[in-house]
């Protein structure tokens, strides 16, 4: 199935915004107009919807993986104790 030039341009433009759209990071927000445009495009374009799903799946996989990789409680406790000792010395 061939795509019209308009579709190609729309895909290109919205794919460039897709990660910012999914991340919702405060340092790089999309404008409300851009948000609506991406949402509208995703509602019509299967290929870009598939790409968005892959990004979501990747992000979820990495987050889940990271939840096992986090610092253990003992490491946090050791740092806290070291901090308390150091601050006591600083206060003396």
């Amino acid at each position, binding site marked *: 199935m061939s795509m019209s030039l308009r579709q190609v341009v729309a895909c290109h433009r919205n794919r460039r915004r897709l990660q910012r759209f999914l991340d919702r*990071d405060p340092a790089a927000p999309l404008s409300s107009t851009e948000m609506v445009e991406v949402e509208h495009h995703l509602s019509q374009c299967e290929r870009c919807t598939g790409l968005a799903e892959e990004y979501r799946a990747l992000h979820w996989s990495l*987050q889940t993986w990271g939840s096992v990789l986090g*610092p253990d409680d003992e490491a946090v406790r050791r*740092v*806290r104790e*070291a901090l308390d000792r150091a*601050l006591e010395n600083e206060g003396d």
Partner: protein
Amino acid sequence: MPPQAGAVIIHPTAEGAILDGMQAAGTASGRDRGSAFSEFVQPEIPVLLRVAYTLTGSAADAEDLVQETLIRAYRALDGFDGAHPRAWLLTILRHTSHNLRRRTRPDLVGEWDTLTDFRPVFGARRPPTPDDVVLSDVLEADLDSAIASLDEKFRAVLVLVDVHGLTYAECSQSLGIPVGTVMSRLSRARDRVRRRLRDSGRFS
């Protein structure tokens, strides 16, 4: 101009209120000030350890780095404006890491084999659920391989943002690179890992 120790400052944020408490405590005694500071930074310790681990590739070095960072933060407290405490701590962490590496000249950061080797020590926060076990069986080999294939600078951004959950700005502070660079590296890293996972049949 940074506020003077003990000055009364009105902040609209909870962090600002804590900072006010620390500065007020600073007028009382060093010990009270230390207690207030400790209470303020303790919630950030897990994040600092995660970032330090990414920077050093070693659980032991990460702990040393965070301890040194917190001491330096305490000494630099009078120059802190209270606006973005995590970003402030991450900046000190990066500078401290840079100084310690320059002083001791350790191995290069980001050796993925080293990172994964340390997982049993650093990754024992909670026992895995049955879902985690199934998921890790499927994902670990593919993800390890895909992430290991990345250049170090791309891998660091991906790990800090997607694995450890830092914002673009926090990642920028941690690595000392502009937010725009974080975004471009993150985008490229995700695309490379996504394509590798797709090639291995993870995404169909």
